[in-house]
């Protein structure tokens, strides 16, 4: 396959960015999207040009590092991570636009690499259960109903890639934040910190400059792990409940 790539190039956080056009040839259908970019970079290096910087690591869809907006869609046309997208999803002769996540809370570091530490700070605000090492009771002392365990798992699957933010017209981080809150709040182990968790995490999310939610649902459509949209409404319910309880 022969492709035309239009790629966002930006030297560093302070520089102006622009789209640059590149041609790549000899692309196989079996290549992953990132292997296609590897091919481009190998050519650029030999020519003495600066290769395109992008985040990637496990390349098996679980670490959440890769983060490209492809033809306007976070992670591209398939519902998966960029690293699991394969070139069989494209046609010979296609022109493909490749951009970084666009959100004010995710500033660009270089080219397609953005700073997602805001997510870490949301977790630090309460996305945990206080259980210091060594203090744990026997695992079977608290059975967890299977539906609750499954619900927790469904939300715990979030890989923190940020596609939800990139896809949202408001740049909101509601799906990311709600996934962690729902994972921990449904479990008996998470109950003691149920209220502070949701209040503190939501407050941190607002402080980080993420946008508000208008329930357009783009986040859940882009999510490579299928975190459901009702995750957000569940969080809102938790938040209202916590506010009422704290006010009392």
């Amino acid at each position, binding site marked *: 396959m022969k492709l035309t790539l239009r790629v966002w190039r930006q030297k560093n956080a302070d520089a102006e960015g622009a789209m640059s056009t590149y041609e790549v040839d000899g692309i196989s259908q079996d290549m992953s999207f990132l292997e296609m970019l590897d091919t481009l970079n190998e050519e650029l290096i030999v020519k003495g040009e600066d290769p395109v910087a992008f985040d990637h690591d*496990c390349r098996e869809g679980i670490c959440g590092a890769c983060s490209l907006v492809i033809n306007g869609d976070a992670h591209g046309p398939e519902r998966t991570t960029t690293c699991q997208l*394969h070139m069989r999803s494209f046609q010979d002769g296609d022109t493909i636009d490749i951009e970084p996540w666009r959100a004010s809370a995710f500033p660009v570091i270089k080219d397609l690499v953005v700073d997602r530490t805001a997510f870490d700070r949301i977790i630090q605000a309460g996305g945990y259960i206080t259980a210091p*090492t060594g203090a744990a009771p026997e695992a079977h002392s608290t059975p967890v109903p299977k539906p609750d365990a499954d619900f927790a798992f469904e939300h715990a699957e979030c890989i923190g890639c940020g596609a939800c933010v990139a896809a949202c017209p408001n740049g909101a981080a509601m799906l990311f934040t709600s996934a962690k809150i729902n994972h921990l709040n449904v479990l008996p182990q998470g109950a003691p910190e149920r209220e502070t968790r949701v209040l503190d995490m939501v407050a941190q999310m607002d402080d980080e400059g993420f946008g508000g939610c208008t329930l357009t649902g783009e986040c859940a459509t882009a999510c490579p792990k299928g975190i459901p949209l009702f995750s957000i409404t569940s969080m809102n319910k938790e938040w209202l409940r916590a506010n009422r309880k704290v006010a009392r």
Partner: protein
Amino acid sequence: MTLSSEYAEYSTGEPVVDTKAPAGPVHERWDKRRFEAKLVNPANRRKHTVIVVGTGLAGGSAGATLAEQGYHVVQFCYQDSPRRAHSIAAQGGINAAKNYRNDGDSVHRLFYDTVKGGDFRARESNVHRLAQISVEIIDQCVAQGVPFAREYGGLLDTRSFGGVQVSRTFYARGQTGQQLLLGAYQALSRQVAAGNIELHPRTEMLDLVIVDGKARGIVARDLVTGKIDTYFADAVVLASGGYGNVFYLSTNAMNSNATAIWRAHRRGAYFANPCFTQIHPTCIPRTGDHQSKLTLMSESLRNDGRIWVPKAKGDDRPANEIPEDERDYYLERIYPSFGNLVPRDIASRAAKNVCDEGRGVGPGGQGVYLDFADAIQRMGRKAVEAKYGNLFDMYQRITDEDPYQVPMRIYPAVHYTMGGLWVDYDLSTTIPGLFAIGEANFSDHGANRLGASALMQGLADGYFVLPATINDYLAKHPHEEEVTAEHPATVEVVRETEERLTRLLAVDGDRTPDSFHRELGELMWEFCGMARTEQGLRKALDRIPQIREEFWRRIKVPGTGEEFNQSLEKANRIVDYIELAELMCLDALHRAESCGGHFREESQTPDGEAARQDEEFSYAAAWEFTGTGASPVLHKEDLVFEYVHPTQRSYA
């Protein structure tokens, strides 16, 4: 015997001895050691700084636990977030001797299985401790909210894994590593928020600072600005993972690398059993030269999937058209009692053998079938989906084939490295104050790791072992003289680091970092992969210095050192891969026996199984660095088996 290069003319030095494991009954040793270890007064802990490099299961759990105890922790990861460490990709599960199934499991059986699975090349004291701690890990993780799979009664579910006959593997669908890592990451995050951990993401350790013979700090590069900085502490913990990426193609993350452990080795830490690498039997076969990494399919698939190839050579009919009696379920045939659940090294070699016979399937004949047709018939598609759904989806995404309809194709790939920095029972390397935990050390898996044991070891080291043993070191070295960036030892290490990066940028040759990495990887896969021979290893040892010479003549690294520069990161890691590859080949050459993942063709039983030579090789090989390309010194640690008597492993 003629030697292929000067490098292979290693000398043998004094034996290395683990002085920390107490004597006495094996099940009392850990209690005894914990009692004998000195403690640091809680009020004094905040005066101690501990550097932790890496945020995977070992590093994440260690950082969180040390901070909870009151130490000041400075922690590093090259990723943009600690949550992305490659432990996250572990699929299958974590072993624990809970015996919830009432199927005859016990701490002693887990200990026995691990020593035997490691082909009698691990230390009994360490393995027993690991088995003891395994039960606490599950409790800890459940308390943190790790959503393990559960039964309808609300209790934890388990499954079985290769090399054992009990069901002791706890799991969270096919994402156990992810869930355990997020548990550790969340505990770590709590400590970051509390101000007990100073976290440096996108920062890579490039060297170790040693003052008066003790590890006192690291040199690290900020990957965003390119700035070289120094950090100081009372002890340094390396939790930087394994070195499987020496092979270029592996199941490791693209940026997982050996620089932290190799730099420590260059500074004096012995490197043990570097040739013990694990080739995982169930990975998705490669599709072409563009392949950048390999993807594992969890070994748990072998619980229900049946592995086979056609009986006839060159049978290229589609799998579904090959009748039952023309299929060879070779693992079930050769190993009737363990069948498809033989240990990884055995399953991998068997796959290689049938492919070498010309019975492999798929492109290039480099694959075997993993078939779920029987499982779907027996359990129903729904049950198979519930158990393995995400793995099937992943397979389909990568290969564009539906494993519910046609059998998966799998082939072995480099997955894990049992070797690593030599550590004693306290997880201390041979450099005082430098500890190595998780995959970065060599201690618990011998010559072959059993499935679902990596997560167990990483968390055992990080949550329970290191936090207990590091106290002893810190208590005995209470008020060290402060080290600063101006200290001559620091200045020298920084200068060497900067010189190396400058040199990489200055070559301005015509070959990319990846081209060298790929070349080295292909050489290692051919000669130091699934089957090794003296002749092949000597060939590799001849070739590696040539690759190194060419590397320094032709490498091309665009850009500068003072910016975000992924090519520079790669090139710098490859320098260390080349040196480490050389040591791996030498270690494989010197160990003229087969054991676990190390298969020397010269040493096999009449039916082709690995033949250990216990008389000669019942030791861990700890190598001392003497210079780039200079032959190292071998220090042997004799292995004593008081409880599990070495026998030829049999899974038949």
